[in-house]
């Protein structure tokens, strides 16, 4: 926002109308530690001086080169073909604010329909919606579908779920009256769904088929939270019988951009189509037999069901979904497979070489992984600091996210994608080996 039009008087009038005494009082729901306290700008600075100050502040951000970025944990550096921005920056798509009226926007509706088709094919499910905001809220929406569908009030997570996804689930559960339980011991007659992430937050492959069977044996739904690129190599959720598949679509042509906007996807079996939240586009024929697209199955939405709507989602991330469609279409099944395989090969090469360094080992050597993997080391901060000095963003320390799991205390989750070229991998290995040597010497 380069220019704010509201004067102090405007703000005071608006706050008064809202019944808030100050901006702080208005923003009371945002944790204080996340609120801007002060930029420390003295009064009377010119626009030019102000911009210079801001640029100096922004300059303190550390930006790592794509190829030297070895951290994933939910948001990934991937190659984005130029075709993606070429298509999404067409003004018909870029400047139109979610036009859904069929008579006004066949192109937009067709693009959404194609996204739904691509997601349904990728996940092996019967039907997908027009997209959601992100992977975490897609997972929470899936949990609510299961709660409404089964009339039960607990959802159980199996394996290592992204801790922020778990937080979002807990938040939705508080509002919608379901409990989040962790671990298969909790699966029982009150379980609406068994939720698992494939691969897990640590990068490990879960027994998706076995977990789905456990869910079904207890009359619960199986919800698979999947990495879309992984489906270039792994069996899709539809194949192992999952009832709902969700995930984060950022890897499909979207930049990390500080965590958003990204795009969530959700797909289900046909029997659950009326429980899917948000927008769905259907293909239809007009009275002359010509193909057309319309919004369909919106009867559970707020504008019709009001307080009884089963979801408060009334829109989608159309432009981000379009980016994902262009990416998937451009790559094709073969291209997607190649992306997954190259990432897999590079991660395995890196894992093997890191594990050969004294003081570093694979955290779970018996478990399979694709392109993200946990390693255990004696001196986590020391290693990550040496990597930073070399311009490399190392893996994510898992310990702080799981304080009650001592086996994750010294674990760092590394990630490779197709952007991490062999020279970048050599650099990581060299720096880590050197760091291990200096750490040992420091101890002696």
């Amino acid at each position, binding site marked *: 926002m380069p220019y704010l039009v509201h004067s102090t008087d405007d703000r005071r009038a608006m706050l008064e109308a809202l019944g808030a005494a100050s901006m702080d009082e208005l923003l009371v729901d945002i944790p204080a530690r996340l609120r801007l306290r002060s930029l420390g700008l003295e009064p009377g600075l010119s626009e030019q001086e102000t911009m210079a100050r801001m640029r100096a502040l922004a300059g303190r951000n550390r930006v790592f080169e794509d190829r030297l970025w070895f951290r994933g944990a939910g948001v990934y550096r991937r190659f984005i073909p130029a075709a993606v921005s070429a298509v999404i920056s067409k003004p018909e798509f870029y400047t139109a604010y979610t036009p859904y009226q069929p008579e006004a926007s066949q192109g937009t509706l067709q693009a959404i329909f194609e996204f739904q088709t691509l997601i349904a094919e990728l996940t092996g499910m019967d039907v997908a919606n027009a997209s959601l905001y992100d992977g975490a809220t897609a997972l929470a929406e899936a949990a609510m579908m299961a709660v409404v569908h089964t*009339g039960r009030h607990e959802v159980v997570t199996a394996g290592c779920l992204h801790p922020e996804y778990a937080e979002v689930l807990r938040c939705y559960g508080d509002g919608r009256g379901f409990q989040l339980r962790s671990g298969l011991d909790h699966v029982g007659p009150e379980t609406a769904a068994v939720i698992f992430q494939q691969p897990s937050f640590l990068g490990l492959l879960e027994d998706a088929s076995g977990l789905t069977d456990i869910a079904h044996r207890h009359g619960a739904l199986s919800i698979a939270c999947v990495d879309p690129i992984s489906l270039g190599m792994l069996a899709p959720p539809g194949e192992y019988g999952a009832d709902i598949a969700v995930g984060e679509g950022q890897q499909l042509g979207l930049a990390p951009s500080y965590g958003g906007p990204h795009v969530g996807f959700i797909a289900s079996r046909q029997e659950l189509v*009326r429980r899917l939240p948000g927008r769905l586009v259907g293909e239809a024929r007009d009275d002359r037999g010509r193909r057309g697209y319309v919004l369909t199955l919106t*009867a*559970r939405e707020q504008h*019709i*069901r009001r307080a*009884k709507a089963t979801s408060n989602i009334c829109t989608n991330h159309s432009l981000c979904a379009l980016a994902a469609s262009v990416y998937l279409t451009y790559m094709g099944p073969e291209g997607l497979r190649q992306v997954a395989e190259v990432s897999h090969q590079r991660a395995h090469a890196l894992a093997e070489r890191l594990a050969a360094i004294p003081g570093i080992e694979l955290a779970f050597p018996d478990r399979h992984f694709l392109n993200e993997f946990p390693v255990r080391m004696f001196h986590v901060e020391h290693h990550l600091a040496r990597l930073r000095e070399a311009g490399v963003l190392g893996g994510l320390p898992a310990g702080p996210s799981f304080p009650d799991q001592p086996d994750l205390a010294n674990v760092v989750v590394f990630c490779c994608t197709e952007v991490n070229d062999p020279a970048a991998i050599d650099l990581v290995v060299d720096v880590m080996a050197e760091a291990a040597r200096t750490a040992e010497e420091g101890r002696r």
Partner: protein
Amino acid sequence: MADRYYTETHEWVAVEDGVATIGITDFAQAQLGDVVFLELPRVGKLLEAGDSFGVVESVKAASDLYSPVAGTVLEINEDLNTSPERVNTDPYGQGWLIRVQLNGDLGQGLLDEAGYESLTQGQSH
């Protein structure tokens, strides 16, 4: 055939041997237009008179269904999953929605045939 009673929210109920069969009226189906989906409760659910027990969705609207009686859901009309149009073609027969084991007697406030007819006079639009 047992006597049918009606609610002001356009459900009907007929009781035989302590079991209430519940549906929506011919007037209601005509107002709704083509029924495309029904969301019905699961067997075993306890209902109080006036509880919402499901949703009927037509090409025109989605409306709540209200139970005329108190009791336990014994059976739901599974055929409507694949043939919801029966609610339109045969609302008092094959288009029934649920059967409920009555808890006590029929409540107050239900309308008889004549009472319901006078209610719907002039209501159509």
